């Protein structure tokens, strides 16, 4: 498997990763200076000698919106025909009332704060984002819209990929081990709905542990062990038993 061949190194801006000819998969984080590949941020550089590919996992950074990303946002302002939503990006996003309500609105007759007011939480998808305008989000789609219940855990947006895991493995593990409903938004806000308080506590601790130890290999196994241990501690499963 190609991932086994990949060499991972912790690098800081200006540090040389390697020399030669490689295909750079993350151009913002790896630049070529005098024939050498140089890192531009603090993170893990992955060198794959077989496929001659270079990629980078940043360990610090803000959320940069991309079209089709699912995000959890907080309403920060109510306009006449739209809401302004904080999505932890450099820009606030716009959610149009036509999109949210599914019908045209007459600002003379309706007050949008009746539907969403400042402080409300929405789960939405980035519909449009380019260099010319701020992100426009949509709530059309399955599972999108106003968030009525659940808990939000905030982690660094660059570590979201770890919570999802390779092909969703970590996400599945968390969901099956805690029987909670987890929605991982790309901007680092994780919406969880748990059957009880104890499982919620375990899940929150597990997510924060993932954030802390994101750069140390063997994460999935460690998290699985951690959840089982916490469940035993709380008497949710007996003795040395295996989680089912």
């Amino acid at each position, binding site marked *: 498997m190609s991932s086994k061949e990949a060499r991972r190194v*912790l690098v*800081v*801006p*200006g*540090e*040389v990763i390697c020399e030669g000819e490689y295909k750079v998969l993350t151009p*913002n*984080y790896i*630049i070529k*200076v005098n024939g050498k590949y*140089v890192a*531009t*941020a*603090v993170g893990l550089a992955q060198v794959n000698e077989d496929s001659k590919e270079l990629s980078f996992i*940043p*360990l*610090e*950074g*803000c959320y*940069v919106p991309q079209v089709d990303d699912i995000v959890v946002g907080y309403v920060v302002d109510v306009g006449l025909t739209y809401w302004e939503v904080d999505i932890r990006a*450099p*820009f*606030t996003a716009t959610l149009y009332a036509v999109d949210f309500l599914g019908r045209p609105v007459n600002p003379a007759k309706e007050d949008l704060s009746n539907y969403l007011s400042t402080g409300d939480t929405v789960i939405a998808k980035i519909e449009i984002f380019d*260099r*010319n305008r*701020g992100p426009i989000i949509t709530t059309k789609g399955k599972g999108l819209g106003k968030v009525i219940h659940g808990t939000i855990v905030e982690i660094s947006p*660059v570590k979201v990929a770890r919570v999802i895991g390779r092909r969703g493995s970590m996400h599945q593990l968390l969901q099956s081990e805690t029987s909670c409903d987890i929605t991982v938004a790309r901007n680092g806000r994780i919406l969880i709905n748990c059957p009880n308080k104890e499982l919620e506590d375990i899940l929150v601790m597990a997510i924060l*542990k993932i954030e*802390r*130890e994101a*750069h*140390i290999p063997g994460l999935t196994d*460690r998290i699985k062990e*951690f959840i089982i241990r916490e469940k035993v501690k709380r008497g949710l499963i007996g003795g040395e038993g295996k989680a089912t």
Partner: protein
Amino acid sequence: MGKVKLLREDGLRHDGRRPDELRPIRMQVGVLNKASGSALVEYGATKILAAVHGPREIPQRHLLLPSRAILRCRYHMLTFSTHERKSPAPSRREIELSKVIREALEPVVMAEVFPRTAIDVFIEVINADGGTRTASVTAASLALADAGIPMRDLVIGVAVGKVDGVLVLDIDEAEDMYGEADMPVAVAPSLGIVTLLQLNGVLTREEFNEALKLALKGAQTIYSMAREALKSRYLEVKVEE
């Protein structure tokens, strides 16, 4: 001028350092949790706190550029950072230093990644004992790296001075005040570029070349410390059992 002995008979400086010796340096990143990135840097008794906010939208929209982020920088000395109380209002000197520090950072920050945004760097001098602008450059570049803003390299500042005819590295306040020359330098060591170079006083051409060489050597040492400081945050994380 009162006679201040900056160089002792044994060739060491007034604080016991060799001419090419740095002061004890300490660096720590991620010291503030509300800022996107932060760093605390100490060059001897000089202590600098830098915080980075952004990239973010700003109310002054006319300042924003469609092609890249703007970098804004504020260098400020706290009222208690000097012997006599420093007025908190920005002085002519602080406005100038804010500009030169910004210009020292601009060549390495990849501002084109975040168009129409602003990156704010706030630098507070907690204690001033010479070399505040150079320590500020180092602190600001560490804070930018901590904020995850892509940079081509780190920028390291270090000053070289001339006391009693001898070139000395990393001058402190006494050497700055009573010495013959003072030359702050900021370099991006991996890229091999000098982003800040000022000279106050008189140096011959040979002395200038020698001074620059000394500064680059000093910067290289600080550079490896800066890299360690950034990495230590991750290397220190232990797997909880």
